[in-house]
């Protein structure tokens, strides 16, 4: 005869019933098994078969444990006494938690976590926070003065508008330490147009002296000399073409524009800016392609409207007038200056520059081709027409936009996984706190015990959401030093980043951070709703049972 009590005791394990009820339950269940066993033997079954039939009555001992405890004590089995697969007494749930934590060892996972849009991590505002005065002072004390100069240049490039004064001081110091950083003057004079009492001209002159072949300082000078968006210039905009004509009549605007269009080079120092940002971020231990990309959005760009005014002036005033007066070579020279400027403006990492470049060239070529034909220069005219046709091919315009859909999809997956991850992280933390409290005092609270029992799956779902985030981000995970140029970064990362932030326009970046809290809010509302339904259902059941 099997020792039924021993079998039941082993199967039930620790069952913390009060007042010796555990022994009574064991004895009673053992008698049930024994009776079934004897009945099976009485019907001619072998001992082995009788035992099998007897034990078959209780297939799920863990469920029986839980139900017996609940029935006897009127409360859920303490979470630390539960033996379910994901109960805290067993390994799987802790393995899930350990695996989630071990993902933190993977740089790709850390990078994915860092780029998630969480309030306070806005990469556009982040640039100015990297160096506090204290941090700068610490670097200043180090022997590496080049590093200090780079840090100062970074501050000059990324300080917000309200910190112009700090940016200017940092820029001065950076250039004094390393004159190769003089190009940051372009940002300083560009950023301080509306800074009261500040004159950007010395910075422009410094830039012109340092880089005399470049047309960019002249563009900046024209902008500094004539603020066409302010009075008295705005009066001229009342008539069509009035503003352009008024600007062209102003030598302080026209002459620098002429020099910019005639300059042999047009460099906006984008490559230098990108290299500096990448190096500084790397030196400071921030492996963040999103910050690198966002940092470039504050890069100084020429005034497109001012350039358009000058292009119109060259093509329609200078060129057409020369054509009408029979000076074909003068007209061609005017058109040619616009076309060459367009060529120099060509920049594969900037959509706006690329559009402007193509537009200027096309506008110029459209005027040049018929004039050359009329002048009998058919071969030159054919060449210009071929260039025009090539510019009109949309596939050559902006290659990274072609991969936009894939990146956007991946970005949204990462964003959603991240939302779940943050939510489940909170739930898991609450679960761990509840477990710790119940470990300290098992009878602390029935509600806490119920919560800890229900949330046992949270670490498993946390692992799943972490894996989803990791796998979704993995194809985009690269160290910032692996991006050789801004163009490469924009092609490889920008579509994904735009998907993460789920918005179509770069200038709406500040709105991105409004998305996080609404998402959290929706999740919270759904959770409260689900809990309320569950509670109502439970109360209704209890009411029915009590009435019965």
């Amino acid at each position, binding site marked *: 005869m099997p020792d039924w009590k021993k079998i039941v005791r082993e199967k039930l394990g620790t069952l913390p019933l009060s007042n010796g009820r555990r022994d*009574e339950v064991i004895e*009673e269940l053992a*008698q*049930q098994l024994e009776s079934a066993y004897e009945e099976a033997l009485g019907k001619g079954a072998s001992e082995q078969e009788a035992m099998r039939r007897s034990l078959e009555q209780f297939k799920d001992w863990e469920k*029986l444990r839980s*139900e*017996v405890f609940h*029935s006897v004590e009127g409360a859920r089995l303490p979470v630390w006494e539960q033996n379910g697969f994901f109960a805290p007494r067993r390994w799987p749930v802790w393995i899930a938690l350990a695996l989630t934590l071990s993902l933190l060892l993977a740089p790709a996972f850390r990078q994915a976590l860092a780029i998630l849009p969480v309030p306070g991590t806005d990469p556009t505002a982040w640039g100015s926070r990297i160096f506090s005065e204290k941090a700068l002072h610490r670097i200043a004390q180090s022997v590496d003065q080049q590093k200090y100069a780079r840090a100062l240049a970074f501050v000059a490039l990324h300080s917000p508008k309200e910190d112009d004064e700090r940016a200017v001081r940092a820029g001065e110091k950076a250039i004094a330490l390393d004159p190769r950083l003089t190009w940051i003057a372009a940002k300083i004079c560009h950023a301080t147009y509306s800074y009261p009492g500040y004159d950007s001209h010395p910075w422009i002159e410094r830039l012109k002296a340092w880089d005399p072949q470049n047309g960019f300082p002249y563009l900046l000078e024209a902008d500094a000399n004539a603020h066409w968006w302010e009075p008295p210039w705005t009066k001229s905009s009342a008539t069509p073409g009035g503003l352009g004509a008024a600007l062209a009549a102003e030598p302080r605007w026209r002459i620098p524009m002429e020099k910019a269009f005639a300059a042999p080079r047009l460099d906006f120092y984008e490559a230098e800016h990108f290299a500096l940002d990448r190096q500084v971020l790397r030196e400071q231990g921030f492996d963040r392609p999103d910050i690198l990309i966002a940092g470039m959005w504050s890069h100084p760009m020429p005034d497109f409207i001012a350039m358009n005014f000058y292009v119109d002036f060259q093509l329609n005033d200078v060129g057409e007038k020369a054509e009408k007066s029979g000076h074909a070579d003068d007209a061609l020279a005017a058109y040619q200056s616009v076309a060459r400027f367009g060529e120099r403006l060509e920049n594969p990492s900037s959509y706006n520059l690329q559009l402007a470049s193509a537009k200027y060239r096309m506008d110029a070529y459209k005027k040049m081709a018929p004039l050359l034909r009329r002048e009998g220069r058919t071969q030159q005219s054919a060449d210009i027409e071929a260039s025009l046709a090539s510019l009109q091919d949309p596939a050559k315009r902006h290659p990274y936009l072609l991969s936009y859909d894939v990146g956007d999809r991946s970005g949204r997956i990462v964003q959603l996984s991240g939302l779940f991850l943050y939510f489940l992280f909170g739930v898991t933390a609450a679960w761990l706190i509840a477990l710790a409290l119940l470990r300290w005092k098992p009878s602390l609270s029935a509600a806490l015990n119920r919560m800890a029992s229900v949330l046992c799956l949270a670490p498993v779902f946390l692992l799943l959401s972490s894996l989803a985030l990791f796998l979704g981000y993995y194809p985009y995970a690269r160290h910032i030093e692996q991006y050789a140029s801004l163009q490469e970064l924009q092609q490889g990362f920008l579509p994904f980043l735009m998907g993460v932030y789920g918005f179509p326009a770069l200038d709406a970046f500040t709105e991105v951070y409004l998305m996080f809290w609404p998402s959290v809010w929706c999740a919270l509302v759904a959770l409260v709703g689900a809990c309320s339904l569950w509670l109502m259902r439970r109360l209704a059941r209890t009411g029915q049972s009590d009435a019965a």
Partner: protein
Amino acid sequence: MAPDRELKKGNAELLILALLEDQARHGYEIGKLIAERSEGVLRFHVASLYPLLYRLERRGWIRGEWEPAGGRRRRHYRLTQTGRKILAEQRARWRAFSGAVNRIVEAGAARRSALDSNMEAQHA
């Protein structure tokens, strides 16, 4: 035909209370009696029976006591005063419910039977 699971679950308490009305019984006996008296239609999972007995005991509807039986001691359950009152209420409710269902189901069957008889008479 096996009875609907929900119906069985809702009336499990009534079945147990009814079986304990006349005399005290132990768990094994209760399980056997439900199967026997329902002629095998109702069969209680033992894993559900004991938690239910403990729940009824906690509510004070039944009382369990160890008593000698067949050379060993067994835990016998008997109805308490509260249990008797609950049984009376549940039985009345069940009778009202099953009576109403019967009246609908059997009335349909009676009409069908009368129709069949008429048709047979016409054919004859």
